[in-house]
């Protein structure tokens, strides 16, 4: 053990370097996977230097290896290649630098790469990054469209030309990126970050033409997929041909088949919209006019109904009623007067029939006392009483005389 260091007894550099080297040397061997970011072979030097980058994080580590390891037949070590490295952390005491000392480098084959992409896809899917509920609707007619494509690429031209033709008012905020190789993913992410931060940009298109599976690998980069998921602005992807599916297509809010298709998705077609508006306008007008006409016809029909159109009809029936009642009243009255006349006639006839005059006419006489009462019994009257005898011809005053001859 070395004595502890102090301002009075500092360690020499070699002591520190050896101690660090010892400690690092004890870490042992690891298998590391990454992407070759830089590769340098210096002339005939026996050591090859490379930088191994994490594809999903902004981290890298220097790797050194013997030339034989790097140049092993069958291993095509190029920048951008995915590799699995067997290495031991190493501290180079002469320079005080850290590196991984590789004893074996394996290229990650295409099948392996696709299997890896599939694993990442499953991982991200499990996290919910591809869920339909995360998909945001695109703005209807965005004023500014962010476009991330390779400079002067066919994809760029397809997006710009098609979108402008469909919606001439559209403006673009461009970000030209590397579309393949080890820097592509980072370059696209940088564009996303810039365009997403721009409040004027309403939708972002990431477009790239077709290419080999390896060319399209950056678009399955986990970091890029997460960056798209984190965007606040809706993202449309159009990467490769329709048959190529990269992970960005899963996370994008809209996956377009081609850059031209992306242009169709982001802006409406102006002529079509005009026709649509015209059509709607015509329909609306026809509906309102039709409705109005219908109401006018209804009102006309109501106003021509007899009860409203000729109010004198209200009186017609009533006048006739009055006339009829009046004539009924008159008839009734006449009838009753005639009846009364007949009654009077009958009464008169009966009075005539009951009158004593006819009896007197036949020779009968009525005897009355002075007070007018009728005499019905000789015993009722006294001797010498004056009486009146009434015959048909008139009255005859008489006196009662019960002489001897009278045998009453």
């Amino acid at each position, binding site marked *: 053990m070395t004595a502890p260091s102090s301002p009075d007894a500092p360690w020499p550099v070699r002591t520190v370097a050896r101690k660090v080297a010892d400690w690092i040397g004890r870490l042992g061997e690891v298998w590391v996977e990454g992407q070759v970011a830089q590769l340098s072979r210096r002339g005939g030097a026996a050591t090859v230097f490379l930088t191994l980058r994490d594809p999903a994080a902004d981290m890298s580590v220097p790797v050194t290896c013997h030339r034989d390891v790097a140049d092993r037949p069958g291993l095509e070590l190029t920048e951008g290649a995915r590799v699995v490295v067997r290495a031991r952390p190493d501290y180079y005491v002469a320079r005080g630098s850290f590196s991984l000392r590789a004893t074996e480098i394996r290229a990650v084959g295409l099948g392996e790469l696709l299997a890896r992409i599939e694993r990442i896809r499953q991982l991200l899917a499990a996290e919910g990054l591809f869920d339909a509920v995360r998909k945001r609707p695109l703005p209807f007619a965005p004023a500014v469209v962010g476009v991330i494509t390779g400079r002067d690429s066919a994809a760029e031209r397809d997006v710009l030309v098609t979108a402008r033709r469909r919606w001439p008012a559209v403006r673009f905020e461009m970000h030209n990126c590397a579309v393949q190789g080890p820097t592509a993913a980072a370059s696209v992410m940088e564009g996303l970050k810039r365009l997403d931060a721009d409040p004027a940009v309403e939708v972002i298109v990431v477009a790239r033409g077709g290419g080999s599976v390896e060319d399209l690998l950056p678009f399955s980069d986990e970091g890029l997929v997460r960056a798209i998921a984190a965007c606040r602005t809706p993202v449309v992807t159009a990467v490769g041909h329709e048959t190529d599916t990269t992970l960005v297509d899963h996370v994008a809010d809209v996956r377009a088949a081609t850059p031209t298709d992306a242009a169709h998705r982001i802006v409406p077609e102006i002529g079509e919209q005009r026709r649509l508006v015209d059509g709607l306008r015509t329909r609306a007008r026809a509906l309102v006019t039709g409705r109005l006409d219908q109401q006018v016809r209804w009102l006309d029909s109501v106003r021509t109904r007899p009860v*409203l159109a000729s109010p004198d009809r*209200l009186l017609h029936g009533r006048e006739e009623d009055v006339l009829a009642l009046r004539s009924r009243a008159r008839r009734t009255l006449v009838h009753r007067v005639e009846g009364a006349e007949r009654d009077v006639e009958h009464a008169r006839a009966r009075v005539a029939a009951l009158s004593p005059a006819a009896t007197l006419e036949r020779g009968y006489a009525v005897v009355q006392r002075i007070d007018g009462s009728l005499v019905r019994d000789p015993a009722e009257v006294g001797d010498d009483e004056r009486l009146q005898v009434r015959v048909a011809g008139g009255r005859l005053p008489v006196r009662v005389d019960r002489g001897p001859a009278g045998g009453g």
Partner: protein
Amino acid sequence: MSTAENAEPTTTYEQAREELADVVRRLESGGLTLEESLTLWERGEELAKLCQHWLDRARERLAAAAPADDAGRD
């Protein structure tokens, strides 16, 4: 009884229309006193004018909103 002549009647077209239909129905079904039927008829005339007013207004507004194809109008 003269709301039909006001510039801005408070009765809507639908209200007037509904009441008018009711008035006609009652007039047609009969069984009313003369005074009742005359009052109803007057109300019906008033409502018909009100309806006409709204429909005329609607036509004017429709004409005012006519697109350029309506020759010269803005």
